[in-house]
């Protein structure tokens, strides 16, 4: 989706705020949110939860920018639990379990677990040193093809092997995980940014085969 999360190349986001003595979690609640999101995973089985990244990206733009990282995670977690009726707004408000509701039960998975990591070999369509163009795609679901490279010319520098596509449909449901090669593609800075880039510099992105066409 063309959301505000896809911010590579945008101006106006301000100065980088650097804290040399930054703790891992700034406040205890951040650590709890981090751990809760990881622990709650099995409860999404059979409950149609969308892709994690898609749900973060679906937070309305103004809120997305205003929220801290773990506030986004918390929002996403609460959304999932409310949507699946695993907790009620009243329970969240009071911190007390409604005694009239049965305890939730884990469900069997309705879809196969999404594969991760490198997959069995399939034939690559592109090879090192090949010129490619990033396709001008604007899907409504989650994608790993940032706007700033769409339509731009690059060069394949490395083939990482086959991985499952992470893209989703507009409801956050994973597209068919057809294994395909992921390539590191080098885009010259001037190809992406014109004269704002130094002629020497380049940006390297890891792109699935579906994102590329021969140039």
């Amino acid at each position, binding site marked *: 989706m063309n959301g505000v999360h896809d911010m590579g190349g945008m101006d106006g986001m301000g100065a980088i705020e650097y804290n040399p003595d930054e703790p891992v979690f700034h406040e205890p609640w951040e650590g709890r949110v*981090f751990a809760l999101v990881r622990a709650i995973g099995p409860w999404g089985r059979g409950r149609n939860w969308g892709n994690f990244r898609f749900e973060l990206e679906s*937070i309305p733009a103004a809120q997305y920018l205003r929220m801290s990282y773990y506030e986004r995670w*918390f929002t996403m977690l609460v*959304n999932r639990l409310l949507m699946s009726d695993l907790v009620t707004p009243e329970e969240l408000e009071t911190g007390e379990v409604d005694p009239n509701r049965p305890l939730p039960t884990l469900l069997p998975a309705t879809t196969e677990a999404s594969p991760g990591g490198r997959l069995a070999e399939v034939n690559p369509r592109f090879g090192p040193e090949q010129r490619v163009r990033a396709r001008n795609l604007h899907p409504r679901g989650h994608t790993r*093809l940032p706007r*700033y490279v769409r339509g731009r010319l690059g060069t394949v520098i490395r083939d*990482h092997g086959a991985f499952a596509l992470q893209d989703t449909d507009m409801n*956050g449901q994973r597209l068919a995980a057809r294994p395909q090669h992921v390539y590191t593609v080098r885009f010259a800075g001037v190809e992406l940014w014109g004269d704002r880039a130094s002629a020497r510099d380049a940006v390297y992105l890891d792109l*699935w085969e579906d994102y590329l066409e021969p140039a």
Partner: protein
Amino acid sequence: MTKSKPKAVGRRRFLKDAAVTAAVVAGQGPVAGAQQPSADDHEHETVPADIALRVRALETVLVEKQMVDPAELDAVVDAYENRIGPRNGARVVARAWVDSVYKARLLDDANAAAAELGYEGAQTGHLVVVENTADVHNLVVCTLCSCYPWPILGLPPVWYKSAPYRSRAVIDPRGVLREFGLELGDEVEVRVWDSTADIRYLILPERPAGTESMTEEELAEIITRDSMIGVSKITPPPTGDAV
């Protein structure tokens, strides 16, 4: 927390927002019982001040429903606060600095080389190490989110996940590096790695001059997280200082 006393209406508004967002995520209309935010609500939009309380309420409810085990939550927090962090990456880099054969393995197959030192895990993904030299400076960003080699570097710092870094690292890497205090000459090539897929990047920083007599363990002490993201170089120890 020392925040001002939260108003109940603020919390209620947050929950309405959350429910509406959930409906949007589900591709449906507003969920049953969720009210649409009124125009009045929008005038008072702020980050809710009582998030610590709301997280605690959520955890309490989930524990009571036997959906999560608080001891497991404690263990996750403890692991990332105390064990999984940039010291792991520093040991990998220090080994590469003192052992050229290890370094070659690291650049060729980083997952296997990191695993030799005991660092592996799903969040490492497919790890790739790129080397900074006098001629080429690499830095890592995730413009879309926050991808980062967790088992090697721990959880990313706030600036790495923030809009200023994510937006500018790709279009103005030299300006970003200047903000971190690193001025690169025009003759240096800058390569920005936007980790968009399942591949995670670790920068192998340049070993500074004057460290020839240091042991692997001493070297690991001077290797910073930021140098392994590529936003800084490692400061050589003061000349003549017996380390």
